[in-house]
């Protein structure tokens, strides 16, 4: 019997859209330029994000958190 596939745990910067004001304060401090801001849309590219966490304290509304997700 094959062992069940191991679920992968990885970290992601997650946007809380109830707090985000789309001000772009996070964009400026992101070294790999992984944060995309268009009007009222803020997306973080999980492929290029290096999880450096610089955006977390820069956010004036505390809308960004590092979370572990199971994929």
């Amino acid at each position, binding site marked *: 019997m094959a062992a069940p596939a191991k679920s992968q745990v990885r970290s992601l910067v997650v946007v809380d859209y109830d707090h985000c*004001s789309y*001000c*772009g*304060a*996070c*964009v*400026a*401090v*992101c*070294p790999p*330029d992984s944060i995309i*801001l*268009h*009007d009222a849309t803020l997306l973080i590219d999980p492929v290029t994000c290096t999880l450096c*966490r*610089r955006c*977390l*304290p*820069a*956010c*004036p*509304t*505390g809308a960004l958190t590092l979370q572990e997700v199971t994929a």
Partner: protein
Amino acid sequence: MIRESYDVVVIGAGPAGSIAARTCAQAGLRVLLAEKRQEIGSPVRCAEAVGKETAAEFIPLADKWIAAEVDHFSLTSSVNDTIHFPPLETTLVLERKIFDRELAHTAAQAGADVVVKARAAGFIKNGAGIEGVKLMVQGMPHEVRCQIVIGADGTEAQSTRWAGLKSVPQLKDYYSAAQYLLTNVNIDHTVCQYHLGWSQAPLGYLWVFPKGNNTANVGLVIAVDPKQTRSAIDYLNDFVTKHFPQSSILSQVVGGIPISNVLPEMTADHYLAIGDAAHQSDPLTAGGITNGMYGGLFAAQTAIEALRQGDTTRKFLKKYEKLWDDKFGADYRRLYRVRQAVFKIPEEKLNSMIQQVSQLDAKNLSLTQVFKVFLREYPLLIVDALPLLLGK
């Protein structure tokens, strides 16, 4: 209307971008001023205070964008001692939405093409050389060719990165900011208040700027600290609850401001960065409206000369960096050091310094007097302040 080619494309229609576009258009250049938002001046990310005389250098003063005119300043500690300063330069508290649109209007009147909902998506490049800007205008791609690009795309600027400038600030040189427009505030509407105390605004400060009609901009900046667990808005909520429990919130603005002093390089071949894109906000207070407008003026003057001479390489455009440095360089280097010096003072010391000065006669208060008291309370200040006093 957007043409296929221009002499100059300005990305971003804030005050810096509009002044740059207007100055270029006045010299007879073909200019496009592209704003990514659907409305110029909105949302505002600013405390809206400018020096009256400086503002008047750029635009005739008009009641419609002046919310209040203030001559007095005060500085309050976290234990509520207050220093009342004698009048310095008259300060205007603006209606930025109207002010920004008026400036863009003057650029259009000078002959610039102005377009909104026009997002810059990248540069048109030939090898390493910039030949234009790829715009998305109302969702439709537009390739606009030009000789020079002026990047006025704000704190979150992309154009600086495309131009290869080192634009990512250190966190200690970055303010996280939050502000409410409050109404039902019981304040003296002739005074701009500053509040200092690390427990209320860690490594930053708070302000209360009257906007007339019983309203005020109440906001704060805090230097970004990775160890900090609370955000700017949390501190602002505490302050408002403590000082303005009866108030109502009419609007909320937040943002980030680089306070690193200007970028070491603000130009590349065929490219100049201005305003917050070039980190031109004052490295102590983070005020940036008129400074950005000067940036726009100097960049435009340089662009005009570069096009006349037929040389738009960085080698020529560096003249803009010289113009900036001649006007602001020494002050900015000083202000940067003042911030570092002030931030080292423990809060209890800060409180006792403010308490002692608050006892002096406000009518005859001089900066020398203030400095003497501060030095008595905190002799270490001399180490940081001496080079400043000597002008080095």
